[in-house]
C-alpha cells in the first residue's frame, strides 16, 4: 500500500514551525517510513501530485497568494492543520491588523526612519501578490481541522499530532506540551 502523503506550506510565517518539523530529530527517519512528503518546502515539490492525508499550514494569510495556497491545500488534503501561532492568530504579522494598510505601506516605503526611496514609490508590480487589508488566521479563510499552537509549535506537539492522526487515533495532546510561546 502506498504511504499516506503529507504536504506543508509556509504562508505569512517565518519558517520557524518548519524548523520545528525538522526538530523532531532522528524521528524524521521514522516519519519518512510513515509518510511521503508531497508539495512542501522540505522537498521543494511545488505542485500537488495527488491527494494528501495531512496538510500542515504555517503562517496566516497576509496576501492574496497566501489565500490561494491555503485554498489549494484545503482542496487537496483530507486533514488540514494550523501549525503555530501565526496560522492560528496571525501573531507578529497581525500586529498591523489595527493599523490601516495604507499607513503600513507608507511607513514601510516612504516615512520610516531608515527608508531610502528617492522615487517615492510603493511597490505595485502586478507580479507582487496584493496585501490583504489585514492578516487573517487560517480558520477564518478555510475550514481547519486541528490546531497546534506555539511560537514555534514545538517538535513534540507536531510529532504527537502526526503520529495520532496517521494512525487514526483521536488527538489527545498532553497538558505539558500545549504552549502558546
Amino acid at each position, binding site marked *: 500500500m502506498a504511504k499516506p502523503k503529507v504536504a506543508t506550506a509556509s504562508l505569512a510565517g517565518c519558517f520557524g514551525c518548519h524548523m520545528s518539523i525538522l526538530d523532531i530529530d532522528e524521528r524524521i527517519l521514522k516519519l519518512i517510513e510513515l509518510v511521503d512528503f508531497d508539495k512542501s518546502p522540505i522537498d521543494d515539490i511545488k505542485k500537488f501530485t495527488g491527494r494528501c492525508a495531512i496538510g500542515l499550514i504555517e503562517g496566516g494569510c497576509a496576501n492574496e497568494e497566501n489565500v490561494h495556497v491555503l485554498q489549494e491545500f484545503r482542496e487537496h488534503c483530507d486533514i488540514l492543520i*494550523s501549525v503555530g*501561532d501565526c496560522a*492560528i*492568530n*496571525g*501573531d*507578529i504579522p*497581525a*500586529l498591523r*491588523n*489595527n493599523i490601516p494598510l495604507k499607513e503600513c505601506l507608507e511607513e514601510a516605503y516612504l516615512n520610516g526612519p531608515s527608508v531610502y526611496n528617492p522615487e517615492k514609490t510603493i511597490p505595485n508590480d502586478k507580479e507582487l501578490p496584493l496585501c490583504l487589508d*489585514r492578516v487573517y*488566521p487560517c*480558520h*477564518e479563510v478555510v475550514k481547519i481541522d*486541528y*490546531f*497546534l*499552537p506555539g*511560537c514555534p509549535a514545538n517538535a513534540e506537539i507536531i510529532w504527537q499530532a502526526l503520529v495520532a492522526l496517521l494512525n487514526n487515533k483521536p488527538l489527545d*495532546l498532553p*497538558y505539558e506540551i*500545549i*504552549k*502558546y*510561546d
Partner: protein
Amino acid sequence: MSDQITFTIDGVEVKAKPGQTIMQAADDAGIYIPRLCYHPELTAHGSCRVCTVIVNGKPQTACTQPAAEGMIVENDTPELLEHRRNLVDMLFVEGNHLCMFCERSGNCELQAMAYRLGILAPKYPYFYPDKPVDSTHKDIFLELNRCILCGRCVNASKDVDGKGVFDFVGRSIDKKIAVNSDKNLKDTTMAVTDKAAQVCPVGSINKKGTAFKIPYGSDIEHKK
C-alpha cells in the same frame, strides 16, 4: 446558629464557616474551582464568570455566592468545562494576546487557565482591537492589549492602597481601564510598591526591568 455549614461539591461533603463563599470553602477543602478575576486578598469582583458553578440547579459565581447549609454544588462537569472554555476563548479574541513576546508568558493566569482547559485555539473570530500602551511611569508600564478587565487593580488601588489610581470607564465592548489623571500613569500617585502593581493576573500591569524572569515553558500557576 450553628457555626458550621455543610454542603456538597460534586457529591463531596464540604464544611464552611458562616460568611464564607463557596470559593473560600472549596479552597479550604482542597477542591479547585477554576477562577480568573478572583484574588484571595481582594474584594471579589465576580466579573469573569469563570468560577461559575451550578448551585441547586442555578448558575452562580463561586467567588461571590455564600456557602449555605445543604446546597448542592456542581463544579467539575462537561457543561461547565465548555462554559469556562467559551469565556476564556472570548477573553483571548477580545484582546491582543501574543504570548510569544509577552513579558508574562509562563507566569500568566489567563494563559495557565487556557492550558488547563486544553484550549488549542479560540473558537471565535479575533477582534484585533486597537488598545493603548502607557509606558510613561518610571517603574511600571500598562499594556492594555492584554487587560481582561478583572478589576483587581481597581479594587487593590481603592481598598488596599487607598488611592483609586484605576477605574473602569465605558460600557460593554468599550469598557476599559483608565487611570486617575487627565494624562498618563506617571501623573497619578501610583508607586511600584502599591498592591495594585502586584495583582494583575496577566501582562497588563507590568514592572519595568523584570521581564522574562520566568523561563520559557515553566508556567508556575494553576498546574494540575
